[in-house]
């Protein structure tokens, strides 16, 4: 009955390969990684919970982890699939979730995810966010050619100078990026985010400084 939510072909080696890509994404914020994962089934909502986030879930979750699912992604089939494939516990309490599955569209900054404590900042929720757009300024889109003005300029650990990541420009995207930008003020407490768009994945850990990239794009267009 969970056949529509696929397992990894080779649990040991596929998990390792996917983990290394997630580690690469977290180590170099804003880099976009293409994950090879069996495609999840059709879903009614947009954005979809795509292959990249499904692969991250399969490689990272087990019976020691708890997952919170945002209302727009939640379904009995997904709950069953996660339990069946990973053994993870589904929780309705965001503050006790190791991972939270959500979409940019419905991100609510008031949701009380765990941000860790000052003595144990690692005990926080990792957000897994489905987005409809995931591009950066080195993935075939030069800054001048980017049509959107929705990029965010990232800097800090994992980034040599700066990198622009574009996750879309909806109100939810802006609320989410504003919340992640707020990590700097609460550091070392904070939220770490992994974004998935189809098979593509990128991350913004709490150590990243986030500024709007709009100013530069606007000035280019005005000139």
């Amino acid at each position, binding site marked *: 009955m969970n056949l529509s939510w696929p397992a990894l072909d080779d649990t040991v080696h596929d*998990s390792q390969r996917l983990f290394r890509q997630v*580690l690469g994404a977290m180590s170099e914020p804003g880099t976009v990684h293409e994950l090879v994962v069996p495609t999840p089934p059709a879903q009614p909502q947009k954005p979809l919970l795509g292959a990249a986030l499904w692969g991250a879930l399969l490689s990272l979750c087990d019976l020691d982890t708890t997952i919170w699912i945002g209302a727009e992604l939640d379904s009995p089939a997904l709950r069953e699939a996660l339990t069946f494939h990973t053994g993870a516990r589904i929780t309705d309490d965001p503050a006790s979730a190791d991972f939270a599955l959500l979409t940019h569209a419905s991100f609510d900054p008031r949701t009380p995810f765990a941000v860790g404590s000052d003595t144990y900042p690692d005990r926080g929720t990792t957000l897994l966010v489905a987005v409809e757009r995931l591009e950066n300024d080195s993935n075939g889109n030069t800054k001048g050619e980017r049509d959107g003005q929705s990029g965010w300029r990232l800097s800090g650990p994992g980034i040599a100078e700066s990198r622009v990541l574009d996750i879309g420009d909806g109100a939810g995207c802006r609320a989410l990026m504003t919340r992640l930008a707020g990590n700097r003020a609460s550091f070392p407490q904070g939220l770490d985010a992994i974004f998935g768009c189809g098979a593509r994945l990128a991350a913004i850990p709490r150590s990243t400084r986030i500024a709007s990239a709009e100013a530069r794009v606007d000035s280019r267009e005005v000139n």
Partner: protein
Amino acid sequence: MNGYNFAYLDEQTKRMIRRALLKAVAIPGYQVPFGGREMPMPYGWGTGGVQLTASILGADDILKVIDQGADDTTNAVSIRHFFQRVAGVETTTATTAADVIQTRHRIPETPLRSGQILVFQVPIPEPLRFIEPSEQETRLMHALEEYGVMHVKLYEDIARYGHIATTYAYPVKVDGRYVMDPSPIPKFDNPKLDGNPALMLFGAGREKRLYAIPPYTRVESLDFEDHPFEIQRWEHSCALCGSDHSYLDEVITDDKGGRMFVCSDTDYCQTRRGEVA
């Protein structure tokens, strides 16, 4: 079946370490506790580093293992053989050819590149431990950024010796926040921690702590305005390759007291000799 999983560790342990590694990368320099496993080698043989390597290693990775810069010491050879046996991975002594490098007490002289991962074996992960034995207290000190004692310790050196006497495990501050023990590397290697394109992971087996420095992260060695941080320097060049900017070991050459200085990084030294020849 060989009776053990790929890379020895069971999948649940690997996942637990992998989740901890993601948090370590997200909070550079912060020590993440992890539920370490017993490994088929004694503490002091790099069980922390071995567990991290086992959790990240893939069948296609090429592995290098060094101990004090050398690929051929007992410790390095036994860890290399361990991973050849339990993971079937290809190994190398060439820094440039390696995807994953596990190390005890050195950072290779050859600059690392983006995509490489350097795994450090750490005996004592807590840089404040010698000041404060209580884990609860050191956690609080990190939380409050109470690092004054660290400077006091270094300044006592200056008062006593006229310079900072700490030459190994010289404390650093990562991304302007956490004070971190870089493991017992010589302070000569500290500048290589700063802005390195490689990902650096640190594993302490006995204390079950892991921490990380992401690529391109600002790492400063603690110092004082009137006593800036300095690395070791030698009056000699390497007797074998002539390098005048590598970390040198003094070796006894005969029983009449003859001695010479040679590179501690054997791959670096041999590569240079090959290029010169």
